[in-house]
């Protein structure tokens, strides 16, 4: 299967962008990810991941309208491209098929 490689963190960011549905931007994404995964994420990591995703064509971005928040600075709003959605789906399918083929899936979660 040939597709662009997606790192684990990139995948999470991409998922978060998909979840936020067009309202995704740096800080919001960071908070979202922190909330969901409970890991410490830094702003620059989110920005780099977004840039990489954009280079890979999985998200697109546009500058939002200036608001009164953050000193009138515009936000860069991200949304998932079709290619991004397909990629997410493919990942999901690959994982699902592995899970199905697993003999005793619950054991994995048990302490040995």
């Amino acid at each position, binding site marked *: 299967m040939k597709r662009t490689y997606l790192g684990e963190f990139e995948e999470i960011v991409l998922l978060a962008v998909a979840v936020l549905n067009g309202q995704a931007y740096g*800080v919001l994404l960071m908070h979202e990810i922190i909330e969901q995964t409970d890991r410490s994420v830094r*702003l*620059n990591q989110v920005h780099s991941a977004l840039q990489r995703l954009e280079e890979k064509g999985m998200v697109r971005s546009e500058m939002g309208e200036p608001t009164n928040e953050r000193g009138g*600075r*515009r*936000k860069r709003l991200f949304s998932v491209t079709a290619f991004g959605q397909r990629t997410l789906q493919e990942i999901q399918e690959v994982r699902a098929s592995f899970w199905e083929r697993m003999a005793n899936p619950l054991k994995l979660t048990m302490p040995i």
Partner: protein
Amino acid sequence: MPLKPPLLADRFLKFFCAPHLLEEVQGDLHEEFEYQVKHVGVRRARWRYWLDVLGFFQPRYIKRKPSQYPQTYLFSLNMLRNYFKIALRSLQRNKVYTSINLLGLSLGMTCGLLIFLLVKYHLSFDNFHAHSDRIYRIVTEQHRDNISYVSAVPSPLGKVFRNDYTFAEKVGRICTFEDMLISIKAEKGLNKFKEPQGVAFTEPEYFAIFNFPLSVGSFQNALNEPNTGIITERIARKYFGNTNPINQIFRLDNKLDIRVTGVLKDLPTNSDQKAEIFVSYPTLKSYNDWLGSDDAWGGIQSSMKCFVRLRPGVSPSEVEKVFPAYVKRYRPTSKNVHHYKLQPLNDVHFNAQYGGAMNKQTLWILSLIGLFLIITACVNFINLATAQALNRSKEVGVRKVLGSLRGQLFWQFIAQTGLIAAIAGGIALGLAALALPYVNQWFATEISLNLLTDWRLVAFIPALILIVTFFAGSYPGLILAGFQPILALKGKLSQQNIGGFNTRRALIVVQFSISQVLIIGMIVIARQIYYAQKADLGFNKDAIMLLPIASTPQQAKTVKAQLQSLAGVEQVSLCYSAPASNGHWQTAPHYDNHSEEESFRVSVRAADNDYLATFDLQLAAGRNIYPSDTVKEFLVNETFAKKLNVASPSDLLGKNLRVNGNMTGPIVGVVKDFHDHSFHEDINAVCIPSASDFYNNYAVKISTANVPATMAAVEKTWSKMHPDQLYEYTFLDEHIASFYETEALMLKLIQLFSLIAVFIGCLGLYGLISFMAAQKTKEIGIRKVLGSSLAQILWIFGKEFARLIVVAFLVAAPIAWWFMNQWLQDFKFHITIQPWIFFVTIAITLLVATLTVIYEATKAALVNPVKSLKSE
């Protein structure tokens, strides 16, 4: 009020973050900051903000977005070629401007180059000997009522120091006598020579210290036996032509026959060790029995030098500690006068106390003047170039529209400046080569301009060109590059837009300040030299010839009688020296049978009874001495009386005086004070005894009528009486002028420098005025239409530069006054700096400036207003 994130962090972010990313990144950061302030407090939020900003400090965020337009490079070969082409064209078109710039820059650079060569030459003195940092000269401080410094030591000191201590690797003594007659048997009669650098009685160890290699012979057996010597190749050629100099004989002072055993390579010119004839040290005993003996501790002969090379790690102060013991042991009766010190070799050339040839301070002042001249030349360039910039505004406008960057325009102008500077550098090199012979003559140096062997010079010239280029080109370059293309293309730039008119005024002020300081210096030095030469010295110095006495006292009397009988000779006196002389025969006097010697020193001017008449010295009390061959009576001067605190000079009469150990007799007369040394020194106490053993000179006063015939007759008489001697004479006034050689040289230099500085300054003024004339064409036209007279219009210009010069003068006058006052302190007898000097200076400057601008200003004022006003 919302809390602000740390300002510095924000600034830093702005500095490094790529502009196209800044907005979103900064926005996110600020939003996060506000969120953190609510959750963790201000302090920690600020702290986190810093961390977050630093988190973005990575290539991904720093890298700028590539421009959508093609990049213009600062240095592209094609553009560089274009710069030089345009530079050449613009230089060709503005010939006056180009030649003024070239002239100014090349003059300034010539001076800089010559001064560099001179300073380098002096700093290179004696630096080519092995371990020269460990070579010292033993010198003597003589502590009496004041400290005097002698670069020599008692002759046995070197020997005992060598034998007693192991501090030194080598100890070498050298004793140089300057006025030695050298005669060589030729086919017909004798060839006679005198070497101004003298003949040196030298120990072979001297050549182990100094790096003067032999070309023939070896040091193993040179300079060991008495009556042998070595000479340089130059002397060998001079004395013996092409014959092999080895084993040739020459005769010293008609006394000693010396056999040549070795030939030295010619000495380097940058050494203070100048003697070229070296005779073995054991020979000294037969030349001067006292000096050659092992117990000549009684006094110091200035010709006796002693050099040592210390072992590594031995400090000079350690060595100086052992010297006082010698004074105690060998000079038990003297009052601990001698203090022997070690003088490092690299100090020998510069320490004036010990007769160093060149003062380091002089070198500094010269370098400073050189620097100032280069600065004035650059200032000049800046001035003209900024004035000229307006003419190039269209070009700059077009270039900018076509996409030139500021940097490119700047570099274009620098390229043009570099071209001028390089040409000026070439001209300067040529001028320096032409001027070098004169410089060498003035400074008595032997500097050569050799680009092939001298890497410092090779490095200096491009460095100078580069510095001048940037110094002179930067400011006008920045101004040119800063033009706004719209204004430039519309031709609406005026001096307001160019700016810097005041800068240029300030630069002119700097230039004229430098010139005026130099002019004031020149006048003061000239006045002081004039004063020193024309002031009443207390004796007559005109039309007096000094001839050497080169025979026994009895013969000298015969010669004197014959000279006196010549027509045209008015007086002849036999004397030790003229009243004013650089000789330092000084001794402590015993007055009136006091048991103690007096604390002051007295100069002994031994002379016969015709001394007063020959030199026109006046008696203040008593009578002249009677004729005598030995010391019977004394004349003293008024200072002698003053130093003894005697109320009236006549109180001295009849009192006994003993000087120089054994000269004793009553004081019979007191002479009015005369200057016994140069104006650098106070008048000393002087005594005049008759002592024929000590006479060195015939002082011959001739009448001013028919001088050549008299001089010829004097020479004939002298030569007849001294067939085996070389005839020499000096005129007393020339001898006295030679006291001020340094000052005369300084005068020549400062005359030259101030001339150049004024010249360059005028070039700058000319540039400024022609610029002003171009700017004010319309104004002048309108004024003329409204009825201004020529004089009124000229005054527009006159006002401008007169003001600049007056301001420059206000800067220059105190500086010059301070410097010249310092300089005059070197003289015990000096002029005061009078106000007229300053008036003359400003008058000269104004006059020269007027002459410079009058043509250009008149031309501008005479333009028909119809012409200047009809076109817009």
